[in-house]
């Protein structure tokens, strides 16, 4: 019978496409994960060069991170830049995120576009533009210059994530606090802050990691200041060591750990909130 024949042929073709789709999907998954796997493999190599280990494994490159003085300086610089940039990004982006969620005012769309523009525009263009201004101010080559550019670079994360957090808090709770005579500061400290601290923590985390990994802005305005990515770039020119892989894995584990903690905090925050509602 031709009917069953074609149906059989069809299901055969179906199985064939299912099979090839699964193979392609798995191959693409490997392709996507390759950098993660390679960096993890290189970080435990027993050899001397930035390579996938062939025979012996060792953890000495993790020890090298703290022992090598020029890595220590670079990490200290990147930590300082990351923390200071994050604090300023929170102080500048937080209030603006609140205004964007709670008020309507003339030019709101413009302010919002401006606030997310550093995330949208190509970093090289921003870096080139900021380099010219910072050169006029003779600030290039200082840590202050890197911090200024990084505050701009990471601030959109605060504006977006804290904005989402603020939007999720019922404005009526604040209105109630105001009507009971709470000052703005009290309402912020006692009502808003406890409700949005998970968003603050997750945006701060994202800000810090983005600043720590940022290369292009630091390359333009940083001059001789050695940050971690700039040190890696310098090393690339003569000899690449597995230390950077170990450093990257450590930073990733730290981020995943902190992000996990932030998610847990967020869950607990939600529980506290639901208790408040009941």
């Amino acid at each position, binding site marked *: 019978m031709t009917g069953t024949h074609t149906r059989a042929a069809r299901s055969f073709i179906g199985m064939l496409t299912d099979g090839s789709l699964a193979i392609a999907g798995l191959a693409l*998954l490997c*392709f996507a994960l*390759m950098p993660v796997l390679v960096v993890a493999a290189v970080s435990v190599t027993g050899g001397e060069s930035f390579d996938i280990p062939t025979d012996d494994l060792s953890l000495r490159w993790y020890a090298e991170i703290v022992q090598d003085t020029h890595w220590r300086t670079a990490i200290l610089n990147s930590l300082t830049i990351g923390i200071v940039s994050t604090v300023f990004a929170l102080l*500048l982006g937080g209030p603006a995120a609140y205004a964007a969620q709670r008020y309507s005012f003339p030019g709101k769309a413009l302010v919002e576009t401006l606030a997310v523009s550093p995330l*949208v525009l190509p970093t090289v263009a921003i870096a*080139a*533009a900021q380099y010219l201004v910072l050169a006029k101010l003779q600030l290039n080559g200082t840590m202050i210059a890197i911090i200024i550019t990084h505050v701009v670079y990471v601030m959109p994360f605060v504006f977006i994530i804290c904005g989402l957090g603020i939007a999720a808090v019922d404005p009526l709770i604040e209105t109630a606090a105001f009507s009971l005579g709470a000052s703005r500061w009290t*309402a912020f400290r006692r009502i808003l802050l406890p409700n949005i601290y998970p968003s603050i923590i997750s945006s701060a985390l994202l800000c810090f990691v983005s600043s720590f990994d940022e290369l*292009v802005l630091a390359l333009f305005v940083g001059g001789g200041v050695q940050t971690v990515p700039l040190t890696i770039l310098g090393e690339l020119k003569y000899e690449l060591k597995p230390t950077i892989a170990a450093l990257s894995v450590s930073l990733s584990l730290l981020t995943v750990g902190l992000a996990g903690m932030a998610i847990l905090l967020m869950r607990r925050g939600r529980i506290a909130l639901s208790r408040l509602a009941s």
Partner: protein
Amino acid sequence: MARRQISSGFDMPDNKASVALNAPLVLFLLLTIVVPLGGIFFFSLAGEAHPFANYADALASPAFVRVVVTTLILGVIVSIVTTTFAFVFSLWVLRLPPRAKIIAVGAIILPFFVSYLLRALSWIPVLGFNGLVNRILMSTGLIETPLSLIYNPFAVVLGTANVLFPIAALPLLAAFHKVDQRLLAAASSLGASRAVIFRRIFFPLVAPATLSTTVMVFAVATGFYITPSVLGGGKVLLAPNLIELLIHRRGEWGTGAALTIVLLVVYMSAIVLARRLGNPSRRRRS
């Protein structure tokens, strides 16, 4: 009016409060984004002979034009390769059971935790002279001498596609999941083969999102600096690398500024186009 639920706590009217809350950020961004971008536009027009001298100089230089053309061509190749990869991957994920779906999506987000620089560098142990691919090919006896797989346009395309893969896959996955499965089931029950269902029902439904993703990937790829400078090995010069070379290392601010403006115009047009393609309803209304 929808947002004015809070009658401000004290005697501070809404407008004053929003000005006070916005002022620090707006002032800061005016000084660090608006003024610098205005400045670079000004520099690009400050040619010695006439306002457009920098642009004319740039157009007259074959090296400069070659860099812009290479950037555009590689951008197109990267966007097609990346979107094709992401499309096939999303098709596969769509059919997976829910638990496997979460694992697959989680896995492609994992590379975000590794910096751009390290993700570019990770191709050296794979494609390099003594890399994994060459070692495998040599040991199987397929080749006698190692192939040069890195520091060429191929490596740049592969590295950039790798970084942009999750960025393309996430919107495509969202679009694929929005397709009403009942439409596909109805077509199947009416006797349509899988090829016909894909071609006549599924693909037309996801085509706008696919096109918008392709254009978005193109835009982002044209602004990439790190991946091409590491994997191009100085041999593949793209617009962002030339901007860095001109402005930062050579101090040729005029032509550098002109190139930055060209890059920004290409980038912004592509982003606007991607948004338009992604929202066909908005286009119809206007």
